[in-house]
């Protein structure tokens, strides 16, 4: 029943992302377009970083294991930096596009705010990054066998799925924080995003000790989730009100024209 593992891991990895897509993005074609464009930008950054890594590997000494590991670490760091660079590039592009869209559109208001763009582009990055992380693993999980015949831990598939889940959500949060900090010129926040991305990527080198990589990742995920919530306009008070269902009065009191 390896199909069970396949579906289980697919749902774990892409469940939240699909839920977000279905409920917040699918109805608005503009958001869909920007999502796909964001995914494409991430793909280009991956292509570039893999090209560099491939060339360096060809030049290097293939027999030296330490050199190969060193090259791998170099590749990971380079990839993270390139991804963030492309995120910045996408931000600049979107700023320019937004002005253009405003000029073209009939309405006075911008069809899509920069905050929404931050969320959508982050999710786009997340989708593509998650796909590349986990699709090969999912196809292997279909096979008649599983890992662990030499005594390696057998939680490979489920750990990879949870890691992918974290990465997708993290990209989304990083997108929100990144765009917000670019808007407000808070460069330290930008640096924090880059550093947290590096930490999450490099902590995977302790695998197969999955607890060593998953726990820090989820800690960073929760921190970034809180930070992104605050950047997106949330506050602790709103959260308390929402959860205790005192929202009706609040909405009536704060009625806004839609």
């Amino acid at each position, binding site marked *: 029943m390896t199909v069970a593992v396949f*579906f289980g891991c697919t749902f774990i990895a892409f469940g939240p992302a699909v*839920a977000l897509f279905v409920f917040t993005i699918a109805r608005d074609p503009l958001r869909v377009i920007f999502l796909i464009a964001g995914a494409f930008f991430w793909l280009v950054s991956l292509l570039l970083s893999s090209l560099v890594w491939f060339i360096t590997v060809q030049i290097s000494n293939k027999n030296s294991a330490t050199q190969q590991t060193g090259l791998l670490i170099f590749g990971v760091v380079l990839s993270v930096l390139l991804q963030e660079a492309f995120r910045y590039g996408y931000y600049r592009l979107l700023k320019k596009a937004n002005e253009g869209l405003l000029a073209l559109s009939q309405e006075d208001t911008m069809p899509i705010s920069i905050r929404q763009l931050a969320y959508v582009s982050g999710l786009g990055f997340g989708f593509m990054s998650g796909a590349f992380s986990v699709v090969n693993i999912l196809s292997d999980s279909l096979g008649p066998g599983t890992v662990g015949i030499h005594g390696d831990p057998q939680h490979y598939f489920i750990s990879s799925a949870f890691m992918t889940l974290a990465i997708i959500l993290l990209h989304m949060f990083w997108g929100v924080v990144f765009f917000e900090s670019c808007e407000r010129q808070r460069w330290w926040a930008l640096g924090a995003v880059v550093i947290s991305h590096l930490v999450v990527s490099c902590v995977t080198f302790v695998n197969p000790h999955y607890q060593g990589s998953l726990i820090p990742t989820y800690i960073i995920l929760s921190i970034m989730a809180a930070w992104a919530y605050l950047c997106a*306009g949330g506050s602790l008070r709103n959260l308390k*009100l*929402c959860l205790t269902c005192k929202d009706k009065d609040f909405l009536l009191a704060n009625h*806004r024209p839609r």
Partner: protein
Amino acid sequence: LSHTHTHTDTHRFVFTLFMSIILTFHVSRLLSEVLCDPLSDFNVWTSTRPLNNSAKGHAANESVVIAATRLDGRSFFWEQAPSAEGTVSGIVTLLATIQALYPVTQEAPPPHNIFFSFFQGEAFDYIGSSKMVYDMERNDFVIDLNNVHSMLEIGQVGLHRGRSLWMHSDPVSRQNKSVDTQVSAMMSRVQSAAAGLNLTVDQPSVSQPLPPSSFQRFLRVRGIPGLVLADHNTSFNNRYYESLYDDAENLNVTYPPDLSPDEQLVYETDAAKSLAEVATLVARSLYIQAGGEEKNLNNITADPKIVAQLLYGFLIQKNNSWFRSLLPPEVTKKGDNSILSSGPPQFYIGLGPRIHGPVHSVTRFVQYILANLTGTITNLTESQCQNPSEVNTENKDLFSYFWVSGPASVNSTGEPFCVRASVRLSKAVSPAFELLEYGSPNYSTWTESRWKSIRARIFLVASRELEMLTLGVGVAVLLLSLLVTYFISSKAELLFSSAREPPTTTY
């Protein structure tokens, strides 16, 4: 495997065998695909008076006494069959018999022809003898069953050790009065031939049937008078019959330690002397049985030196100087890669030259030894030797022509020459394969199967609990995220309402 034992609760090992036999899936290939090859090789036969090989069926004015033995053996292990007492004792005895008998039959020919036959494949349900009888029945052989006067078969004769030899006869055919008379007469002739030799010959009780022998194949078709000579009465003396351990040591063929190979070749062991006695007995018995005169009997003696050389070649080392001298030059020169590789020959029949490499070594040895013992040297050239029909003094129907190396001396290799002998090979493949009766109860159906590669894949399969847990967690995560997202998106205005932007922007 230690890991699996600690995880037996959580893992199952699935061991899958894939036989890559494609014909399970492709019926058309099934019909044309050969799955096995029949065991096959050649019988070797010769006669004291040459028989016309091109004239098949009943031979006019011929009444032959057949002297037969088996040429092969087997053991549990593939292509390993030293078969010393089981086979070599018979071969060596019959070859020594021919050596003893042949000159006298040329000087003072007996009334009956004597037909010597070495049957191949007897260990596998009498392939060679059944084929010869089958050919005789269908008039596809130089003689037929009407030409057969009587038969003497040499069984396992190596372990009599000063005890008697036994003459086994068939009680069923002896119920016929005339056959019984002839068998009794044959027995008395053998006993009279044993007089003056260091041997005694006994008969087992009349109701005891024959031991396993090629003679039974002839008896199946016709009640021929005949005997089977063996060193045992009711049970075998050979503890290692058809075993890997039926080797030189079993026959007591051992040499003093400090002899060179050439010295070992001619050293006369006690076993050689004892087998020479048996050969002399058989030769004299055959001469009398064929109607020869008793006064010539003293000239019929087997040479222990020839017996010693035969034993050395068939039990210890087939690549010796004597064998090399009587084989063709191309075989001698090839050395290790041909039938003259080092060590004793193996007596398993094999699949025949078409399928399985060079010609069977034992068949070749017996053929060329017979040519050496019974043939005459001619002064034909090599090309004439290979095409004797072009030479009008030579007769290809009556004789075979062999181009042999000749004895080698220290200084030079031998000068090859052409030997003419009435030695022939006849095909030994079970009639079941000619009749295409693959389930035949009458003939041997032994084959070697063709080998296909067998593959196996071993892989680890995750425990059911883990699989179901993964699926469960996945579904839970999906449902939870759908719920949470719906909740957040419906309360979005409330949750993200700490707006720092002017109200005109949308969310």
